C-alpha cells in the first residue's frame, strides 16, 4: 500500500498517515466483569482478513476508519466515524 485515501483530503502518500489499530467497540464499563475488561484491554483479533481500523492523517489531523484486508494489504473503503453507525 503506497497511497491511502483520506475521506477529507483524498488520495495521499502512505507516509502522511499513522496506523491506529483495529476499530473496537468500548464495552459498558459499569456492567462488565474483570475478565471481560481484561479481554477488551489486551486481546486482539490478529487473524489475516478484512478489518475495520483507525488511521490518522497527520498533516490535517484527521482520524478516520478504513476497511482493509490484512493479508493482501488492499483498502476497500475509507470513511469518517459516525457515532450513530456504531451505537
Amino acid at each position, binding site marked *: 500500500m503506497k497511497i491511502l485515501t483520506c475521506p477529507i483530503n483524498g488520495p495521499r502518500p502512505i507516509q502522511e498517515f499513522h496506523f491506529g*489499530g483495529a476499530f473496537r467497540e468500548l464495552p459498558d464499563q459499569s456492567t462488565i466483569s474483570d475478565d471481560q475488561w*481484561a*479481554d477488551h484491554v489486551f*486481546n486482539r483479533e490478529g487473524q489475516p482478513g478484512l478489518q475495520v481500523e483507525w488511521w490518522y492523517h497527520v498533516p490535517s489531523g484527521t482520524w478516520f476508519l478504513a476497511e482493509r484486508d490484512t493479508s493482501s494489504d488492499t483498502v476497500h473503503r475509507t470513511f469518517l466515524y459516525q457515532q450513530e453507525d456504531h451505537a
Partner: protein
Amino acid sequence: MPYRLLKYGLRSRHPEGRMFRSPASLGDEYDVVIIGGGGHGLAAAYYLAKDHGIHNVAILEKGYLGGGGTGRNTAIIRSNYLTEEGARFYQASVELFQGLSSELDFNLFYTERGHFTLAHSPASLRTQRWRAEVNKTLGIDSHVVDPAFIKQKVPEIDLSCGGHQAPIHGALYHPPGSIARHDAVAWAYARGADRQGVEIHQQTAVTGIELRDDSVIGVHTERGYIKTRKVLSAVAGWTPSITSMVGLRTPLVVHPLQAMVTEPLKPWLNSIIVSASMHVYVSQSTRGELVAGASLDPYELTSMRSTLGFAESLAGHLVDLFPCLPDIKVLRQWAGLCDMSHDFSPIMGTTPIEGFYLDSGWGTWGFKATPISGKTMASTIVADRPDPLIEKFGLSRFRDFQLVGEKGAASVGH
C-alpha cells in the same frame, strides 16, 4: 577440490544421506503433534525425544522446513535484556547455543562477535546503564562503553552518523553477542529429532483442531485426521489463525519485519551493531554479506512482501553509520512475520484448553530463543504445567494484569 565437488555432485548416492526422512503418509495417532516446522517446533520435538523419551511425535509444516521466521531473521543471539525473567531466559538460550554445534554434530557457524547497542542521547545511555546493571546481577557479561571504545573496536564507524542523526554517546556492549547460520539450526534440530523417531511432514497444513469438553482429541490436516491428546502450536506469525481453531483469544497482532543482505565483502565488520533510534541492526555473516534489518512495518499485515521504502531508508542509515558503504550493492531483501505481544515478551506454556500448548509471541526475538523455548516447551508438555523458566510468560498474564514489560527487545520503539 573442484573434481571432488564435481564427483560428489554427479554421484547418485550421496555419502551424507538426507538430513531427515519424508514419511509417505500420516500416522493415525501421535503422543504429541507439533504445528510448525520452524526452529522452535523442531527443537521442541528434539527435546521431547531426547530429554523425555517421547518419540511418537509428528511435526506438521504447511510450507517447507525453516521457511518462516527461522529463515527470515538476522540471526543475532544475545541475552542482554532488561527484565529479570527475560534476561534469565535468553541467557539460558545463549548457554545452550554455545554447545549446540557439538550436541547436534552439525556446524551452526555460531560465532561470538560482541554486540553494541548504540545510544544517541543521554536518555538512551541511561537505559543502557540500567540494562547493564540488571544483566550484571544475573551474571551476564554486559557493560556501558564510551565512544572511544566503540571507535577502537569498529574503526569504520562514523560516530557523528554523517551529521544526519544525533551523534553516538556510547553503547551497551555485550561481548557474548553472537550470530549463527539460522537455516542450519533448523536442519540440525530436524536431523536430531528425525534420528530419534520424530516424523516431519512438510506441505501439511492444519485445517482444524478437534476438542471434546475443552480438551484436545485430534487434529484435522489437509492430508487427513490424526488422533492426539497434545498439540503444540509453534507457528509464530500464524498463531492467531491456529488459536482461533480452538476459540482462544490472544493479544497478538502481526506486523512484517523486513531485512536485506548486501553482496559479499572481505571480512571487515566483526561486531554486531544495533541502533534503535536509526532503526538499524547489522552484522557481517561468515559468507561476507552484510545482514541488516530495520524496525517493524508500521501497520498490521500478514504478508511477506517487501518494500522499496524499507530498502531506501535502511540503506541510508547504513551509510550514515558506515560511510564506506555507498557503492555496495544490495543482493536481496525479504520480510518475515512478527506476532507482537503488548509487553514484547513471548506467550508460552499451557492454555485453558487441556492439551493445547502455545509457543508464540515471538515478535522480533524468536531466533535467539530457539533452543531454550524448545527445551522448556518440551518439559511443559510432559509435565502439563509451565516450566519454571517460562512461568512469567503464560497467556494468563493478560487476564491477571501481570505483564512483563520487556524494553530490551529488538526493532521496537520504546
